[in-house]
């Protein structure tokens, strides 16, 4: 458990950087520090029938950094291992930025995704972007590690536009919070 403990520590420190996030975390009981394998956002199996969604047809968006490989408009981009919702990369944002005029949710569900370039496991924070209606582009859903609503912090069906000015869901990001295990 020592690896996990140090992960939890890192997470706690990181989370503490954001007051609003922390206060929300208090509500859910510190959920983000544990049991946070691969939760994701509102599933619509009706639209993304095949596991991982269908190719978006969008023009490829890469970071240009070989250490961060892949196309951010596609469901198989490495950071999206636990995402569920419309990809903000297809909506005016990016993998780590909300589209203009939306608000990034302060509370978030997180996943652990392996970066195929450097083979590190990264903690990815799937912050929702809120305040405009369903983006409608690039629906992507992967349920590995998802658990039912009984464990909200691991459930991808929840609209995490909580603590935002508007609860309307627009799209989901996949922000790098750090590596999963402290390498020191």
């Amino acid at each position, binding site marked *: 458990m020592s690896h996990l403990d140090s992960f939890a520590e890192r997470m706690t420190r990181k989370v503490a950087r954001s007051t609003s996030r922390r206060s929300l975390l208090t509500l859910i*009981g510190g959920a983000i520090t544990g049991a946070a394998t691969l939760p994701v956002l509102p599933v*619509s*199996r009706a*639209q993304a029938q095949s596991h991982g969604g269908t190719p978006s047809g969008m023009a490829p968006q890469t970071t240009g950094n070989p250490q961060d490989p892949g196309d951010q408009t596609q469901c198989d981009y490495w950071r999206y291992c636990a995402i569920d919702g419309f990809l903000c990369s297809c909506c005016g944002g990016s993998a780590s930025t909300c589209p203009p005029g939306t608000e990034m949710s302060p509370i978030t569900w997180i996943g652990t995704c392996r970066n195929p370039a450097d083979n590190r496991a990264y903690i990815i924070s799937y912050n929702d972007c809120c305040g*405009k209606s369903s983006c409608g582009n690039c*629906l992507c859903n992967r349920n590995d590690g998802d658990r039912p609503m009984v464990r909200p912090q691991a459930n991808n069906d929840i609209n995490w536009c909580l603590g935002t000015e508007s609860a309307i869901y627009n799209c989901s990001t996949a922000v790098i919070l750090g590596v999963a295990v402290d390498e020191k």
Partner: protein
Amino acid sequence: MRRAASRIAIAMTIAALHVAAPAIAADYPQPLPEEPVPAVAVLPEKYPESWVFVHDLHFNSLPDGRVAVVDVAAENRNVKGQIPAAQFGNVLPATTRPEILVGETFFSRLTRGERTDVITIWDAKTLSPKGEIVLPGGKRGLFVTLKNSLQFTNNEKWALVFNFTPGSSVTVVDLDARKVLSDIDLPGCSLVYPTGPRGFTSLCADGTMTSIALDAAGRAGPTVTSKVFNDIDKDALFMSPAMVGRTAWFASFTGNIRGIDFSGAAARDLGMFEIAKPAGGDPEWRPGGWQVITADKAGLLYVLMNPHGKEGSHKDGGTEAWVIDPVKKALVRRIALKNHSVSIEATQQASPLLVASKPDGSLDVYDAATGAFQRTIVGVVHDPMTMTAAR
């Protein structure tokens, strides 16, 4: 500004009628009769048991969710009407009066502005709103629709609304008085399963469940917490059970079935049994989809099964419905579905139909007893997540 009325007169010039004096067909000496306007359809107060409420999450416009009322037994005119269910809405048809409850959320400027959560009470016959109860606090839980987010208790006199902020709580609503009775904090637990004469149970993140009896004022009374029974890590229960009377049958991720008796003041675990796993899975057969388990009036269970079951496959939908007798704990029959399906629901007729919703929003209907395919109903909804058969 005054504009000459003559303009209108000129605008009224007969443009083109394209109609010569009609030939009168000898076969039809009389023209078709004039039809009255306005004319608006009405529905029966008590819906036939072949009718199903199909909830449309409407992922491309979550603020504009709705519910289609569908007759799945009819040869045509299947869609009987629509009921709005805005922003991750819930639908709950009453059985004791001709009313349909919808939990929904509005913003004064559609996507921004002031938030208002309500229960809207719809008249079953006219599909018009006949009442509204505003829910305080802007905390109604918003997630992909689950039936146990809005439930009745107290013989349908009260409604229970599950809130998520992400703190959990339950709002108790008096439907007769049209007012909120109480708010009950529920840390660590989710959803509401009506329990006993006047109470509910919630499933908790530690694998237990907690039953709360309500007093006459809707306040929390005696509370009973069960032993740990839900192995969320290894074999979590799907949240939506099939109801046979007051007994709920939950499917688990790997394909076990657990009964919970909600008839008493505290929920009672009836234990779990395994569904025999026939060959043919790759890697194995597991339940898959959104509403994966349903029951007919005789108490048989139907479970939507996915041959490609593994970790993370639990929402992938399925290709067969397995018929299970929970008394004998036996797999009775397998129904091969025509199409990959998202959710299933059995009607409550003596000869039940099995309805399977598809990713394109259409429904396939099967004879539940024989598994014979009956019809496809297109144009029902956009995203058919849950279905609720009329009772």
